[in-house]
């Protein structure tokens, strides 16, 4: 119990432990008209509720699971605030960390930790906004997590090595997040002009920064996965993505003796 409380405190304090108010994919306060802001809240709500239900069920099964969820939540918070200069574009942007989180704790729980991270960023770091929280949860938490998770599962089933599956998961989840942000902005702001034209224009504006940054996120995802997998294999096994290590026959015999 004490350990759990410590992790929650850790998650809360890590919310402040960042050097600047970097902003990138987050849609800022006041940008979305009220009806669009409300729509994205309505779309995001069932996913958050689904994630909270999953968290309760999995925590009842294995209380230590909450520790990993807390740690991954901290990582998502830090990664999604980390400004990285992209020399090819002359701008700064940030990775999202939701692809990595989706591999480790599953997409539904990633929605929960992303929502908490985005809420704390909006409240304390002027990063994103309270009125645009639904839209930001949809792009980063829901689309980023589910896309990354799907890519990881499919590529593993196709027989790709773990590191390359994790790399592709990071890349695609990052690009999908920014594509969704473009969609949200275009649908809310296109006015009388063409939606498709504005969507393409916003997407194209993101590309010089996000193409290299997505590749960077893929490298981060593969690296973190390679670090965690040998130490906490049960975390990924419980998602059914990786099969448990078979017990070696000689070990079995030793156990019997």
């Amino acid at each position, binding site marked *: 119990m004490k*350990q759990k409380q*410590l*992790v929650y*405190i*850790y998650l809360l*304090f*890590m*919310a*402040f*432990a*960042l*050097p600047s*108010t970097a*902003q*990138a*994919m*987050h*849609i*800022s*306060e*006041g*940008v*979305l*008209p009220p009806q669009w802001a409300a729509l994205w809240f309505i779309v995001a709500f069932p996913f958050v509720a689904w994630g909270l239900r999953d968290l309760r069920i999995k925590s009842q099964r294995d209380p*230590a699971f909450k*520790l*990993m969820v807390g*740690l991954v939540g*901290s990582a998502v918070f830090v990664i999604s605030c980390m*400004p990285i*200069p992209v*020399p090819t574009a*002359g*701008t*700064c*942007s940030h990775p999202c960390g939701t692809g990595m989180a989706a591999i480790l704790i599953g997409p539904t729980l990633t929605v929960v930790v992303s929502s908490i991270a985005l809420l704390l960023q*909006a*409240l*304390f*770091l*002027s990063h994103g*906004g*309270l009125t645009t929280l639904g839209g930001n949860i949809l792009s980063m938490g829901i689309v980023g997590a589910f896309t990354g998770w799907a890519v990881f599962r499919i590529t593993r089933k196709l027989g790709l090595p773990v590191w390359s599956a994790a790399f592709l998961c990071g890349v695609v989840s990052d690009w999908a997040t920014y594509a969704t*942000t473009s969609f949200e*902005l275009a649908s809310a*702001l*296109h*006015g009388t002009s063409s939606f498709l034209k*504005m969507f393409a*224009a*916003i997407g194209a*504006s*993101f590309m010089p*920064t*996000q193409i290299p940054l997505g590749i960077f996120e893929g490298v981060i995802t593969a690296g973190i996965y390679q670090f*965690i997998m*040998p*130490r*906490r294999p049960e975390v990924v096994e419980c998602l059914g993505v990786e099969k448990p*290590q078979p017990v070696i026959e000689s070990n079995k015999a030793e156990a019997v003796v």
Partner: protein
Amino acid sequence: MKKVFIGFLVLAVAVGLTFLVVRVTPKWEGVDDTVVGKYAEEAGRPARRAYIDTDRGDLLLFFFLIAGVAGGFVGGYCFRELFPPQKKDQA
């Protein structure tokens, strides 16, 4: 020898990237300004200031310091539980 080579490579990449970032002259604005902000302003919906604006002087730095110390302590305290040592006999 391999470790020295990797260390040298990492150092070279870090120096190269730092050189690029410092020498190239853009403002390094976030894409929210260059992309989101641009299209939002064109549509007549510029971003407004945050409802809780903590970006005042060195106040944020103070919070970062306190939170970094507390978070680092708790993270270190739980580290062994979160990342148990790798079992070498499983290989």
